[in-house]
């Protein structure tokens, strides 16, 4: 299985450990993983700010780097959703269509494609789950509290395979953390208030870690946790699933 590893730009630059964990995890689960060396960004920061007319360069570069893989996997629901919904240039319609239908967020790739049934991971800690909106409501990685539908969660399914991990959910199971891309600076006051409120619900549960599938949300929460001098750490799902494998 020929997997192209798609590492979002800010993870590449600021959170290489998340990328390393993703890479190692996929390798250990038997995938043949390549990392196309000239990848940059999916273009989402511009598009979500209203500048989708400026994303052509990113589209072209993305297609050039990823068109030949059976699967494209990224540790980010948000960037994957952007590619699925908005990739439009840089290749033939067939190439673009193939990419859009073969790009996966890590947890959905592990659950739906690799059909992982067990992991030799251990993480003996109290972990709070942060559900990121684009993965959840965009990619349907878990059920949504607004809908009348059966409950499920791909990331929880995986976390329950980890030894010693105690999973704790906030009261508002799927409220947004307030990151929202450039929203985090253009609507700074609301953004930070939303982040603080999410954190407070996790603090009530006395968690040691807040775990999520999108590093962007975690970066925002981490920034607040550190400023407020709180001991709780943020951690990406891939890092937990890869721990002590």
């Amino acid at each position: 299985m020929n997997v192209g590893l798609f590492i979002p730009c800010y993870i590449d630059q600021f959170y290489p450990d998340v990328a390393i964990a993703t890479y190692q995890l996929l390798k250990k689960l038997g995938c043949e993983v390549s990392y196309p060396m000239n990848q940059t960004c999916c273009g989402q920061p511009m598009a979500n700010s209203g500048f989708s007319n400026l994303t052509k360069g990113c589209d072209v570069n993305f297609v050039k780097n990823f068109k030949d893989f059976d699967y494209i996997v990224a540790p980010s629901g948000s960037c994957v959703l952007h590619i699925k919904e908005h990739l439009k240039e840089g290749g033939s319609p067939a190439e673009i269509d193939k990419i859009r239908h073969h790009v996966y967020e890590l947890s959905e790739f592990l659950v739906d494609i690799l059909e992982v049934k067990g992991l030799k991971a251990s993480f003996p800690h109290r972990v709070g789950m942060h559900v990121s909106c684009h993965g959840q409501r965009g990619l349907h990685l878990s059920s949504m509290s607004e809908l009348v539908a059966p409950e499920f969660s791909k990331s929880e399914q995986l976390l329950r395979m980890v030894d010693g991990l105690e999973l704790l959910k906030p009261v508002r199971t799927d409220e947004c953390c307030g990151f929202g891309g450039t929203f985090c600076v253009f609507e700074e006051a609301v953004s930070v208030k939303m982040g603080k409120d999410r954190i407070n619900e996790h603090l009530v549960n006395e968690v040691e870690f807040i775990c999520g599938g999108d590093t962007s949300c975690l970066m925002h929460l981490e920034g607040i946790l550190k400023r407020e001098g709180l001991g709780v750490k943020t951690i990406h799902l891939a890092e937990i699933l890869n721990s002590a494998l």
Partner: protein
Amino acid sequence: MSLKNHADAAQEFIRDEARTDWHDETLWFVRHKRDKAVNTLPEWEILRDWASRIKNHTLSNLDYYLRSFEEKAASNGIIVHWASDAEDHNRIIHKIIADNKIEHIVKSKSMLTEECHLNEYLQNKGIKILDTDLGEYIVQLRKEPPSHIVLPAIHLKRQDVSETFHEHLNTEKGNYDPQYLAGSARHHLRERFIESDLAITGVNFAIAESGSFVVCTNEGNADMGAHSAGIHIACMGIEKLIPKTEHLGVFLRLLARSATGQPITTYSSHFNKPRPGQQMHIVIVDNGRSRQLGRADFRNSLKCIRCAACFNTCPVYRRSGGHSYHSTVAGPIGSILNPNLDMKANSDLPFASTLCGSCSNVCPVKIDIHEQLWKWRQVIVAEGYVDKGKKAGMQGMAWVLSNPRVYRISGKIGRWVMRIFPFMVNNRLNVWYKQREMPKAPEKSFRDWFKENK
């Protein structure tokens, strides 16, 4: 009404953090009640789908249904007026008032008249309208616009209401008892109902096949007004139509559950024809709706039945308050309706969202609200209603991210600066840093690691 943009108004709102928490929790409670109510109906998602399809069908055949409604209503003895915009709407109502030499007017349950600024229009002509729904009544006394389309005074605590009533109704100072306050308002309003000559109401659903209309209320003031006054004027947007009476069942089951978590509103009043001696008018208003109908990406925002479920679920609305949207219809739905009315004045609203998508999920008629927010952003930028600095920043970012070598070099320099000269980014010019630490800048990017360790 505030002229500040959403972000600035929101910042001001949040300055009182305890009050923001109270506002957030109050509205979350309503969202929670909605969840409990909808989960008692296994067919909930099917109902949403039906409602969406009925509304889509109606919008696609709006000319037919409007004519059918007009014809039936007229044959029932209702006088039908057509208003192309707010000015028209106000003029028509003023003419009815003037022709009949009316002095006492009561109003209930109409956000459309708020949208058209009818109160101010008539006030400038020396005519006073009394808003009779408790929340509307409170904000009218305070000379404030409503902050929520279903709960217009939700931004006020009972202490605030007590002070307002003490000032205007001479209630006991410091008596915050909600029952006492509501009782005082009721006593005052009853007299006004009895003396009223003309009642204005909104319309929740207008039925094309019968020419009748339905008004959904909890307090019953629409009925009090319509039954005591000799003239009833009902105002409706062109999108309020449904084809048949049998479709009402779908919408009545969805509306109150979505709005407040009630199975149905206390009153669902059906108006078919004037009683003997009564005049009944309907004013059918366009005010930009047909323009929205012509925008392929935004037309289905006209499916909205004004339940405000998207307000209550919106994490941004709950923490910024209705007035920060500087529009009659606030919240996520307002942010996709208002740019159609005035794109420049409302160019900030589609950005007042994280695009979390919760609004689209609670919407009882399945409007893709968060996707339309994204699309409005594209339109607003294309039309040039964007800050020059932001535009330049985006162009720069796009150039860096389109060129792998430039991206790598910029990243390396950026991380180096953050490690060696942290004050270069950890300063007041960096909005992120105001209340958040910057991420740690590692020496190596993942790509650097990969080259060494693959």
